[in-house]
Structure formats: structure tokens, C-alpha cells
């Protein structure tokens, strides 16, 4: 049996009588890129929110590396190595790129509460921060202020910062939303690249991206799992085609 990094058991979330996520059993294999797709309102974002404890599950369990994390707080889960990105871009706009990434690294030093220490003590992290920036192709912009960056670059920076946390599992919610074609490709490749040695769970409507990089796909519909498997298999499933892809999916989305 393959090594499972994240597992949910009968995960359910109800909002005042409306079940957004219902009895979802998800297993994410270590080292894979796992995509969560499904029609609008299927419960994907809610699922993410449950996994990172931004929402409290109604019932069900979440296991990370076999440990039950259902009752933990968001920051605790983050420290375990489960890091999420947001649907909107999440950077620190008035810090430099370097500082952005360094903030991701800084926690390891254990000096974050040391208000009497000099900032200079953080310079030891600069090397690693630059490496991470290089990994996403931003090394030349290290000392720019982040606000001035174009959108796609901000996403890349966000990924670099996330990598700084040395995440075991990255949760990406629509990472390519609102991006131009070039950026979509760049980010998709980036995800592929950083998935080395990590696990990625992502929500994505762009089938072009999903088909090229995802190893496993889970399709949600009305809060429940509709199908699961590799892209080729799932995309031919008639139920999925009807509920999600539509009849002309291949033609319209495949080339996206």
C-alpha cells in the first residue's frame, strides 16, 4: 500500500441544514500532485477550509501522517507542515521579496519573540531566502518592494514563501485563477517543479493545468466524491462529463 500523507474519514460540513461537504473520504499519496475538481459549489474550497481548520468540521476526521489533527488550531497545523495558499494572492505588500521569504524561514530560528535582538540576526537566513527566490525565478528582484510586482510574479513569490516553510503538504486553491496564459504555464511548471519531494493538493478549474500536472484527480459534486483516478480516466467518465466538463470539454478546455 502506498504511503498516504493525508486522509479524511467521512469528512462532513453542514451550514444550517445545507451540507456543503458530505462524507468525503480522501487519501492523498505522498509525493503526488492531487487535484480536486468539481462543479461550482461542489465544496472544494470548503474542503480546504476544513483541512486547514479555517472551518470546523461537523463530523469526520482528518489524519495527517497518520496523526489525527481534527482538533488542532490553524497555526498548529501550519507548523506540522500543511501550508495553504489563498484564492487571492497572499503576500506582504510593503516588504521586499527577500523579507517576504525570510518571514517564512524566520520561525525556524526560534527568535521570533525576541524583541531585544537586532534585525541583523536574521541575515543568516538571507542565503537560503535567495535560493528559494531563485527556485521560482525571482532572484533578480530580491530587493524590490512586493507591491510593484505583476500578478503572476506575486503568485510565484507566494509559492517561494510557502516553500520556505518546508511544507510536506501544500494546498493550492485555484493557483492560476486570473492569470494570463504565459503565467498559467509558468506557474503550472513551477508547481510541477516544487512538487519534487513534496505533496500537493490543489483545486483548479483550468483543465489544461490539471491534465498536464496532476497525478490523481478527485471529482466532487454536491459535497460528495463523484469519481477518482488519473485524468485520462476521469475525463472520460460520462457522469463527470455531464456534471463538470461539459460535452466539448476537450476542445474548449484542453487547449487552454
Amino acid at each position, binding site marked *: 500500500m502506498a504511503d498516504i500523507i493525508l486522509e479524511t474519514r467521512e469528512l462532513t460540513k453542514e451550514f444550517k441544514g445545507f451540507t456543503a461537504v458530505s462524507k468525503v473520504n480522501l487519501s492523498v499519496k505522498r509525493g503526488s500532485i492531487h487535484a480536486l475538481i468539481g462543479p461550482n459549489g461542489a465544496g472544494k474550497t470548503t474542503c480546504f477550509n476544513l483541512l*486547514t481548520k479555517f472551518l470546523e468540521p461537523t463530523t469526520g476526521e482528518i489524519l495527517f501522517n497518520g496523526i489525527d489533527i481534527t482538533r488542532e488550531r*490553524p*497555526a498548529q497545523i*501550519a*507548523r506540522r507542515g500543511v*501550508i*495553504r*495558499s*489563498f484564492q487571492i494572492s*497572499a*503576500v*506582504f*505588500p*510593503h*516588504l521586499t521579496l527577500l*523579507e517576504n521569504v*525570510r*518571514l*517564512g524561514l*524566520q*520561525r525556524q*530560528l526560534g*527568535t*521570533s*519573540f*525576541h*524583541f*531585544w*535582538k*537586532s*534585525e541583523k*540576526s*536574521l541575515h543568516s537566513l538571507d542565503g537560503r531566502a535567495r535560493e528559494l527566490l531563485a527556485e521560482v525565478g525571482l532572484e533578480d528582484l530580491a530587493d524590490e518592494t512586493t507591491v510593484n510586482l505583476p500578478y503572476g510574479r506575486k503568485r510565484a513569490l507566494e509559492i517561494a*514563501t510557502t516553500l520556505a*516553510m518546508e511544507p510536506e503538504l501544500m494546498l493550492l486553491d485555484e493557483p492560476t485563477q486570473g492569470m494570463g496564459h504565459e503565467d498559467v504555464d509558468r506557474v503550472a511548471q513551477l508547481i510541477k517543479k516544487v512538487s519534487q519531494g513534496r505533496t500537493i493538493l490543489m483545486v483548479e478549474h483550468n483543465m489544461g493545468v490539471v491534465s498536464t500536472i496532476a497525478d490523481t484527480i478527485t471529482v466532487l459534486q454536491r459535497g460528495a466524491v463523484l469519481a477518482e483516478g488519473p485524468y485520462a480516466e476521469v475525463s472520460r467518465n460520462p457522469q463527470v462529463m455531464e456534471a463538470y466538463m461539459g460535452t466539448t470539454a476537450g476542445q474548449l478546455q484542453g487547449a487552454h
Partner: protein
Amino acid sequence: MKKTTIGYLVLLLALLLAPALGAYPVFVMKLLCFALFASAFNLLLGYTGLLSFGHAAFLGGSAYVAGYAMKVWGLTPEIGLVLGTLAGAFLGWIFGVLAIRRQGIYFAMITLALAQMMFFVALQAKFTGGEDGLQGVPRGKLFGLIDLQNDLTMYYVTLAVVVAAFLLIVRTIHSPFGQVLKGIKENEPRAISLGYDTSRFKLLAFVLSAALAGLAGSLKTLVLGFATLSDVHWTASGQVILMTLVGGLGTLSGPLLGSAVVVLLENKIGELGHAIAGISGIEWFNTLGESVTMVTGLIFVICVLAFRRGIMGEIIALGERLRGRK
């Protein structure tokens, strides 16, 4: 050396020489206390983005504790100051625990409410002397040796304490901790997702700010010899916001300047009015002394409408624009 460093050195020199140059030491000491108070407040608002509307509680609460320790228990001034600071920190911790998870205006309002409760305690408790205040706090001898009764000695002690506290603030802002605060101010959800328990960071910032405000309050009691209700009243919280705003939010030097402007105004506006009346011959200005609140109000309005960055903020922005041109 950087220009700002030179600026601070000049200011320090001026302060060192102030009594010799004829400035009235007690007044300058009062100014220094408020400068510290405003700087402590700015640490919270300007660098953490938390608007507390209850800082008077720390200023006043600590003033009572330090005053009581020195007057009734007869402790030495340094212990009084330490106790006052600790009291500020403790109050700050309580306020913080209750308020820190609330955002924005809720945070402001809950701190205001807690400070109101503090006010009622101060009004009603026996040891505060109610509306009479805690009067006649002796300055005593520092470490049992240095007699602070002399205004000049007191002045240099005050200056030393305030400078040290200010340096601590500077250091805090430029520390690993300060870096995280900046991150929280910019984008809190992101900071959480990076694994920072942001409420603990905000709490520490709050406690620090409260402790330093407490130090300011204790120092004020030591200098002036009393602690009274006006320090715990909500208007004192409003005033410190004004100081910070006038000087420039989120700038280090802003609160220093802002507190100077506000304190000078509050104390000297009568004389200013007489002077203007003398020069312009307009009789009305003679009554300016009775209109402090109106003038304060006017400054608030003008500041918000036209000078939002505060005096220092505007100067810095101007500098940047000039540099940008070149």
C-alpha cells in the same frame, strides 16, 4: 552616518543642554514623559496596526501603582518605576488577553470599555484617593543615593530613562519580532498560514506598549509628585492618539514631535493667545487660553483632512518625492 541618526543626536544634545539654555526642566520632563507615552502607543498603532482607545488605563494605572509604592510603602524611585512598569505590563496583559482576538474597531472599542472600567476603579478605590488623586508622592533618592529633589538631577534621570526606553522601542521595531509584527500588520491571514500564532505576537506587542506607557505614567508621577484621575480618563487616550497622529503615525520621530506640539499647546496656548493678540491687536485672541478644547478639535480636523501623515510623515514623504525627482 545617516541623516536621521544625526537628527537624533542633535535632538539629544539639545535635550542635554536644555536646562542650561534656559528651558524649564519640569516642563521638559513632562514633555519627555508624554513623548515616551506617545512612542509606546505608536509601537502598537504605527507598527502593529492596533488602535487602542484605552491607553490611558496604563498611563494612569501605573501612575497610581508607582505613586502608592513610593508614597505609602516608601520604596525608592527605581523600584517605584519598575513596579509601575510591571503594573502597566500586567494591565496590558489582561486587556490584551481580552481584546487581542478582536479586529479593527472592535478592538478599539473593547479597549475603551476596559479603560472605562479602570477609570471607575480609580475613582472608587480607596488607595487612589478618588477625585483628590494620590498627592504628595516624594521623589526620594535614586538607589538610596542620588537625591532627586533637585530638578536638574531629576531632569537627567528622566532623560536617561526616556532615551533608554526609546532605544528599546527602536530596537523592538528592528528585531526579529518587529519583522513578524510588520508581516502581521501587512497581511495577517498570510502570517497565520506561515505558522505564526499572530495573537500571541500581538499580545506581546500590546504588553510591551502598555509597559512602556506604564513607565511613562510612573515617571510622570515621580516628576510631578501626584497621580490623578485625568490620567485614566478616556480623554488621555484620545490625546495620545492626537499626539501620534499629529507627529506622524508609524514614524519613530513623529510621536516625539507630536507630543511636544500637543503638550505645548495645552500648556501654553493662553500665552500664545496673548502674544497673538498683542501682535495683531485682535482682542479675541486673549480668550484663546479658554479654548484649548476647540483648538485641539481644530487640529484633529485639519490633521485628518490635510495632514494625514502627520508632520514627520509629511516631511519624510516630501523627502522621498524630492529624491524621486533627482
